C-alpha cells in the first residue's frame, strides 16, 4: 500500500513539474468548462440562501452539467490513453476542483455559525452538494489512475457501461458508495491507495444499466418492464396503424355496427337472434382457454412504427402487453397531441383519458407550506401547519405584488441573514431619509409642486391652474397664521379666550 501511495505521489509530483503548458490539449478545454460550471454552482448556492427552496432544482441542474463535463473529460482521458500532458492538465484540473470544493466547505463552515437556526433540509442539501462534488472528483481520480495502471485500465475497458451510456444517471446511483470513500479520503494525499477498491461498484452489468436507462427515459407506457420474457416464448402480433386508430375495433357481422369493447358487441348481438343469447355465445371468448392445461402461447404486441423500441425489429424490443397498451402507446408516442387542456391551454394530450386526468388536477390550488410540502387539499395543509411548530402557509408567488417584498419577507423570517431583499429596503429608506434631511421644508409642498403626481407625496402635489392658491390655507392650526387672520379681521382671539373662561367659571 505504502509503495503504491508513494508511487502515486511521485506521479503527481513529476507530472505536474514536467510541463506547465495550460490548455494545450483537449483536456485543457474540458478543464475550463468544468471550472466555469463550478463557478456557477457556487453562485447558485449563494442564491439559494435568499430564495429558499426554489433554486434547488437549478442547483441540481448545474450539478448535472458539471457531472456531464466531468464525464466528457473522462472520455477525453480514455481516448488518449497515456499522454503525460493530458495527464498533467487532468491533474491540475482536479487540483483546481478540490481547491474550489475546499473554498466552498470553508464558506459553509463560516456561515454555519451565523445560521444556527437554519432548517435541517438546507444543511442536508449542502452536504449532498458537497458529497456529489467529491464523488465526481474521486471518479476522475480513478479514471486518471486507471489510465496509469494496466490492471485498472483493463477493468475500465471491460466495463464501459456507466461512462458511455448514460453519464448523468450512472454517476448518481453510486453516490452513496462513493460517499463512504470520499469521507475516508478527505485529505487528497492518501487517495491513491484506496482507489483500487473502487472499480467494484463502478462495474455494472448490462442489464442493470439498462434498467437505469429505462428510468431515465420515463417511459409512459403501461406495460411492465420487469417481465423479461425470453424471446420466442410469446407470440408477437402487430396491428396496422389504421387498425389502432380506428374508433371501433369490434364490428357486428350482421349490421356492421362498431364497438369499442367485445362485451358490448356481444350484448348487441343478442338483438340479432336467440342463438346469440346462449351462455356460450355471451361468455368471454378466450376465457375457456385459460384454465386449459395445454400451454397456450402468450400474446404480446408490437408497435407498427419502425424504429420504435416497441417495434419487433428493434434490437432491444420490448413487447406491449395488451391491445389497449398498443393503442395508448401509439397515440402517445407517434400521434399528434390534439387535445389541449381547457384550463391551462398549454398541456396537450393525444389520449383523451390523459387529458381528463390532467384536467382533474389542473388549475387546482396547490396548497403550499413554508417547508415546501404541497397539499391538494386546504384542510390537509392547515392540519399540517397546526401540527408542526414554525410552519406557515406559503402564499403563492403570483399573488404577491412585488417579488422583492416576498424575498425580503422570507429573509427576515429566516432571521439574521443580511440578504439582498433587506438591503434593498434599507437602501430605500436611506435615500428617503436623505431626501428628507436634504429638503427640510418638504411639507411646505414647493418641491413636490414641481413634480406633479409623484407617487410618493401625491397629497401635496399641485393641481392644474391653482398655483396662485395660497398654501398657507392648508397649514395646521398650530401655526401662528390663525392669530394673524384673527387680528386682521378685528377679532382678538386672546380676549375671546379670556371671556370664555370667565363665563365657564
Amino acid at each position, binding site marked *: 500500500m505504502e509503495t503504491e501511495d508513494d508511487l502515486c505521489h511521485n506521479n503527481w509530483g513529476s507530472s505536474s513539474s514536467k510541463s506547465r503548458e495550460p490548455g494545450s490539449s483537449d483536456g485543457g478545454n474540458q478543464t475550463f468548462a468544468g471550472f466555469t460550471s463550478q463557478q456557477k454552482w457556487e453562485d447558485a448556492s449563494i442564491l439559494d440562501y435568499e430564495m429558499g427552496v426554489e433554486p434547488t432544482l437549478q442547483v441540481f441542474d448545474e450539478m448535472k452539467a458539471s457531472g456531464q463535463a466531468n464525464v466528457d473529460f473522462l472520455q477525453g482521458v480514455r481516448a488518449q490513453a497515456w499522454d503525460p500532458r493530458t495527464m498533467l492538465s487532468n491533474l491540475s484540473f482536479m487540483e483546481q476542483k478540490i481547491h474550489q470544493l475546499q473554498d466552498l466547505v470553508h464558506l459553509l463552515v463560516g456561515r454555519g455559525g451565523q445560521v444556527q437556526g437554519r432548517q435541517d433540509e438546507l444543511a442536508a442539501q449542502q452536504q449532498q452538494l458537497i458529497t456529489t462534488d467529491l464523488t465526481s472528483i474521486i471518479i476522475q481520480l480513478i479514471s486518471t489512475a486507471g489510465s496509469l495502471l494496466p490492471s485498472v485500465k483493463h477493468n475500465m475497458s471491460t466495463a464501459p457501461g456507466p461512462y458511455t451510456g448514460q453519464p448523468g444517471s450512472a454517476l448518481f446511483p453510486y453516490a452513496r458508495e462513493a460517499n463512504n470513500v470520499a469521507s475516508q479520503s478527505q485529505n487528497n494525499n492518501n487517495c491513491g491507495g484506496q482507489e483500487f477498491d473502487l472499480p467494484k461498484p463502478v462495474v455494472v452489468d448490462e442489464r442493470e444499466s439498462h434498467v437505469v436507462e429505462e428510468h431515465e427515459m420515463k417511459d409512459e407506457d403501461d406495460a411492465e418492464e420487469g417481465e423479461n420474457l425470453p424471446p420466442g416464448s410469446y407470440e408477437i402480433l402487430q396491428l396496422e396503424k389504421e387498425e389502432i386508430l380506428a374508433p371501433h375495433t369490434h364490428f357486428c357481422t350482421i349490421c356492421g355496427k362498431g364497438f369499442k369493447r367485445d362485451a358490448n358487441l356481444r350484448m348487441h348481438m343478442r338483438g340479432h337472434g336467440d342463438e346469440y343469447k346462449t351462455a356460450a355465445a355471451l361468455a368471454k371468448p378466450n376465457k375457456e382457454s385459460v384454465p386449459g392445461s395445454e400451454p397456450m402461447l402468450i400474446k404480446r404486441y408490437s408497435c407498427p412504427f419502425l424504429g420504435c423500441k416497441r417495434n419487433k425489429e428493434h434490437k432491444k424490443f420490448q413487447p406491449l402487453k395488451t391491445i389497449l397498451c398498443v393503442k395508448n402507446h401509439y397515440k402517445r408516442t407517434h400521434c399528434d397531441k390534439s387535445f389541449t387542456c381547457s384550463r391551462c391551454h398549454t398541456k396537450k394530450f393525444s389520449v383523451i383519458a390523459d387529458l381528463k386526468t390532467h384536467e382533474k388536477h389542473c388549475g387546482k390550488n396547490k396548497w403550499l407550506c413554508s417547508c415546501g410540502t404541497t397539499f391538494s387539499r*386546504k*384542510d390537509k395543509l*392547515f392540519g399540517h*401547519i*397546526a401540527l408542526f411548530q*414554525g*410552519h*406557515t*402557509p406559503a*402564499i403563492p408567488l403570483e*399573488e*404577491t*405584488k*412585488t417579488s*422583492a*417584498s*416576498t424575498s*425580503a*419577507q422570507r429573509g*427576515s*423570517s429566516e432571521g439574521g441573514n443580511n440578504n439582498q431583499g433587506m438591503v434593498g*429596503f434599507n437602501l*430605500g*429608506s436611506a435615500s*428617503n*431619509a436623505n431626501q*428628507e434631511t436634504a429638503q427640510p421644508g*418638504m*411639507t411646505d*409642498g414647493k418641491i413636490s409642486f414641481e413634480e406633479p403626481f409623484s*407617487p*410618493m*407625496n*401625491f*397629497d*401635496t402635489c399641485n*393641481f*392644474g391652474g*391653482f398655483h396662485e*392658491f395660497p398654501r398657507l*390655507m*392648508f*397649514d*395646521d*392650526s*398650530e401655526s401662528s397664521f*390663525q392669530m394673524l*387672520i*384673527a387680528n386682521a*379681521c378685528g*377679532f382678538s*382671539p*386672546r380676549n*375671546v*379666550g379670556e*371671556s*370664555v373662561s370667565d*363665563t*365657564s367659571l
Partner: protein
Amino acid sequence: MKKVKQIRVSKPFDLLSEELVFIILDLISPNSSDLKSFSLTCKWFYQLESKHRRSLKPLRSDYLPRILTRYRNTTDLDLTFCPRVTDYALSVVGCLCGPTLHSLDLSRSGSFSAAGLLRLAVKCVNLVEIDLSNATEMRDADAAVVAEARSLERLKLGRCKMLTDMGIGCIAVGCKKLNMVSLKWCVGVGDLGVGLLAVKCKDIRTLDLSYLPITGKCLHDILKLQHLEELLLEGCFGVDDDSLKSLRHDCKSLKKLDASSCQNLTHKGLTSLLSGAACLQRLDLAHCSSVISLDFASSLKKVSALQSIGLDGCSVTPDGLKAIGTLCNSLKEVSLSKCVSVTDEGLSSLVMKLKDLRKLDITCCRKLSGVSITQIANSCPLLVSLKMESCSLVSREAFWLIGQKCRLLEELDLTDNEIDDEGLKSISSCLSLSSLKLGICLNITDKGLSYIGMGCSNLRELDLYRSVGITDVGISTIAQGCIHLETINISYCQDITDKSLVSLSKCSLLQTFESRGCPNITSQGLAAIAVRCKRLAKVDLKKCPSINDSGLLALAHFSQNLKQINVSDTAVTEVGLLSLANIGCLQNIAVVISSGLSPSGVAAALLGCGGLRKAKLHASLRSLLPLSLIHHLEARGCAFLWKDNTLQVLFKW
C-alpha cells in the same frame, strides 16, 4: 402675557422638577389647546411637552416626519385623520418611532402596501396593537408581512375582504401573542383559518368573527381557548345546530357572547354553545330567528349569572320573558328594542324579578302601555338608562312615576312620546341625567324645559328635534342651567331665533349643534356660537336660508376643531366655502346648493380642505368640475356624493 413671564424671571422653573411638570401635563392634557399654549410658554416647556406626549393623532400624513421628530416618545399613533398614508409615510413612522411605538391605527387610511407594512413590522419591534380595518385591498401576501410583527397582541382586520385562510394562517403562526383579534367582515376567512388561529394563539381573549362564513366546526377549537372572554359571532349564518351538536366544552373564562343575527341557530344549538360557559355575563341574541318561548329560555339554564341580555328584534312570548326573569334574576341590562310582540304582561313579569336592572331598552315596543312603565318604575329603582322611543300608548301620568321612582336615571330617551310639562317637571328631579331625548314630543313647552334647565345641571345631550312648542325662552333656561351641554339638536323648531344661539354660546363645551330647518337663525347667531364654543365639531345648518358667508367666515376663524358641516340649502357662496379651507380637520362637508356656486370656487374650496373625506355636492356640479380634479380628490381619500333635490322638490310642490 406668557411672553412677559418668560422675560421677567430668568430661570423661574429651576425649582420645578420634570416629574412635577409631567403631573401638571397629565392634568391639562385632555384639552389640546391648553397643551398648545403650555408648550408655547418657553423652550423648556416645549421640550417637556414633547417628551411627555405619548399619543398622536395627526391631521395629515405629510407632517409625520416633523411631528415624529418632535414627539420622540410617541407610543400610540392614530392616523384615522389621514386618508392617504403612503409606504413612505409608514417607513417614516418605522424609522422615527422605532421600538417605542406600541399602537398604530390605520383603519381609515389607504394607499399603503406590503412594503410599508414590512418596514413598520421590522422597525417597530414592540408594536402591540395595529388596526388595519378597511384595508379592502389587502391580500394574503400583505397579511404575511403583518405576521412579521411578532409582538403583536391586538389586531383588527375588519372588512379586509381579500384575506383568505392562508393570510390568517400566516398571522396565526407569526403573531403568537395575539390576545385580541377582530376579523369582522373578512368574508374570505373560513373555519380553517379561524381554527388555526385558535390552535396557534393560545392567549386570545377577544375574538370577533362577525359575518364570517364559518360553521360550528371551528368553535370546537375556539372554545378550548383557556383565556377566551369575548366571542362575537354576529351574523354567522353558517353556525347552525347541526355543526354544534357534538360541541362539548368547558370554557369557564367566557364572559361575553354575541350570537345576534345567527339565523340558523335555534335553542338546541344555543344550549350546546352555552353548555360550558357557566360564567357568561353578557349574551346578545338580537334578531334571532326563533321565537323566545319557554323552550328557548330553558337553554339559558346554565348561564344563571348572566348580567346582560339583548333580544332586539326577536319575537318574544310572555312565557319566555317570565322564564328569563326567573332563570337569570341577576340581569342588569335588558334590551328589547323593536320587539313588537312584547306585551305589558310579559315585560311586567320580567322586570318584577329584576331588582338590579340598570339599563332597559324598549324602543318601538308599541304595544306597551302605562302599566309596564308603572311596573318598571316600581320594581327597578336602580335604573340608569331607559330608552322608550315610540311607546306612544304610554300615558302622560306614567312619566310622573319615572321621575319619582328612578332618581338615578342618566339616560332617558322619550322621543315620540306623550310626555308633557308635568312629566318633565318630575323628570327634572333625576339630578344625574346626562342625556335627554325629547324629539317629536309635541306636548312639551318652554315651561317644562325650564324645569329641566333648573334641575339637571349635568345634562350633556339634549334632543328637541321637531318639538315645535319650544322657543328661545326654553333654550335660554337650558343654556343657563346646563353649562356642560355638549350636544343639542333644535332642528325644525321653527320659533327659534338668534337669541337662542347667543344664549347657547355660554355652553363652551358644545361640540354638536344641529339646527336644521330653523328659518330665523342668521349668521350673527352662528358667529356667536363659533366665537365662544371652541370645541364645536359638528354643525348642521341645512335649510337655514338666512345663513350666509359671514357666518361661515366666523366658523372658519374660530372653530378650529370643526369636523363636519352641512350648509345645504343656505345662502352660502363659494366665498364661505373657500374660507372653510382654513379649518385643518374638516372631514365632512355637505353643500347641496343648486345655484349661486361657481365651479371654480367649489374646486378651490375642495382643494383647500386637505383632510376632506366626504363631500356632498349638488349633482349639477358633477359635470362642471374638471374630471381630473375629482380623480385627484378621490385619490387623496375624499368620497363624493352627488345629490339632486329637484325630484324631491317636485314632490313637495
